[in-house]
């Protein structure tokens, strides 16, 4: 008698991959023997586009690289260009940008909590998380004019001075109590724990070998948070969340704790911004941004890991080559390793716990 293994396509029609990711699994019974992620369904040519557009035309488009955390990528492009042009940001601009980035990080993590629990079959937390995220998005809409494609940062500063600080105060006073609610119904829930504890163990060495960064690596016990060395965050008191669990549950817990740290940063930034200093920023002529010939590199800590931007300029008004490094791309490749030996039932839970977002992978 001969036995064969079963090849199974998980996605792109699977609800949790919603048309943008296909995992080609090889199964022996219910055990996964190998996994081959197939990406590229959402490729928009963001890097090639940069070579055709001037810097000011390209800036509104980078929000779309990661549409759940748009501020991070516009910040990244702005910072790279500012680095090339030797522009220093004033303290007020720095505080405003930090505050918005952290609010964006919270909204991204909240969406992840909802979507992850949805993958596991719990529907209520999805709506709770979206309700809190809605407060943040409403504030962003009030400030920038749109809910996800902000286009608020400009080279050398921001579009207009920050407003509606009371809304931010309200958000950070409500959030801790809501987080307590989530923790009450999720964290110690036996069903949730059975599906997450000791599932999808990411050993630190494997994480490093696969270039994993961000929360996923920190939940495996490696202290690597680029924010600690970032000049945007200088003067802010916060801790990098390091957990030793290595499993899906730790990655969930780390994100909850990271939201709490973000709230700390926001309240410090808010205290500073309430002093009402005058906004000082250097005006740059948008029609004539030319980076001096050379190569420029900048990195920041995005919600899904280290994000970086590399620009090679030949002195023209557009990049000769622009390259994005995004955290999710590496997390997708990690599935090749992480899913092997696990059961099919756990595949979605493990893939969900890595916080993969496909626009970031495909760019």
């Amino acid at each position, binding site marked *: 008698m001969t036995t064969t293994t079963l090849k199974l396509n998980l996605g792109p029609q699977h609800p949790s991959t919603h048309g943008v990711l296909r995992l080609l699994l090889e199964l022996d019974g219910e055990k996964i023997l190998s996994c081959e992620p197939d990406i590229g369904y959402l490729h928009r040519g963001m890097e090639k586009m940069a070579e055709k557009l001037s810097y000011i035309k390209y800036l509104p488009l980078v929000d779309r690289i990661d549409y759940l955390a748009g501020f991070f990528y516009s910040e990244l492009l702005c910072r790279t260009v500012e680095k090339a042009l030797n522009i220093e940001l004033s303290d007020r601009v720095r505080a405003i940008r930090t505050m918005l980035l952290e609010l964006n990080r919270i909204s991204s993590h909240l969406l992840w909590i909802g979507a992850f629990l949805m993958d596991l079959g719990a529907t209520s937390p999805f709506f709770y998380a979206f309700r809190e995220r809605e407060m943040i998005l409403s504030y962003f809409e*009030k400030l920038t*004019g749109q809910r996800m494609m902000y*286009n608020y940062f400009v080279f050398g500063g921001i579009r207009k001075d920050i407003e509606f600080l009371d809304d931010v105060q309200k958000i950070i006073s409500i959030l801790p109590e809501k987080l307590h609610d989530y923790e009450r119904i999720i964290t110690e829930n036996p069903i949730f724990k059975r599906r997450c504890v000791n599932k999808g163990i990411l050993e630190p060495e494997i994480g490093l070998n696969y270039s994993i960064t961000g929360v996923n690596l920190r939940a495996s016990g490696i202290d690597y948070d680029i924010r600690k060395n970032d000049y945007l965050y200088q003067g802010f008191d916060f801790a990098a969340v390091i957990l030793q669990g290595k499993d899906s549950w730790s990655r969930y817990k780390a994100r909850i704790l990271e939201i709490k740290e973000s709230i700390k940063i926001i309240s410090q930034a808010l205290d500073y911004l309430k002093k009402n200093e005058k906004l000082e920023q250097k005006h740059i002529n948008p029609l004539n941004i030319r980076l001096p010939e050379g190569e420029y590199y900048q990195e920041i800590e995005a919600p899904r890991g280290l994000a970086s931007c590399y620009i090679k300029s030949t002195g023209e008004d557009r990049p000769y080559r622009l390259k994005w490094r995004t955290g999710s791309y590496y997390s997708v490749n990690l599935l090749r390793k992480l899913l092997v030996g696990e059961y099919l039932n756990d595949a979605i839970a493990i893939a969900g716990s890595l916080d993969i977002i496909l626009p970031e992978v495909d760019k």
Partner: protein
Amino acid sequence: MFIGIKSTFEGLATVFKHLFKKPVTLEYPEKKRELNDAFRGKLEVKGCVGCGVCLKVCPSGAISYKKDETGKVYCYKIDLKKCIFCGNCAYYCPKGAIKMTKEYELASENKKDLILEYEGGCND
């Protein structure tokens, strides 16, 4: 077993708490959201002097206009099929001639409705 029952009740308690709260959703299209002044909706143009900044900052090439012999701008077209509502043109316009309104229901059965014409419109 005990933990299972306890957490089920905790979960249900939270769910019941929300059962008696006001809904957070709106019955669109009967009720509509309140929009704020910064909202980036349909564009409106008035008082263009033809400096061309909007053409140079628009990422999708949605804007075009013509000039007559005296240099007066006419036939200022914004193609909503291309526009991504980034707000660059309105932000960088030195005369403040481009404004973003709160209108957002822009779907149409006719393709021509999606090309907005300002500054006297086009004759052809």
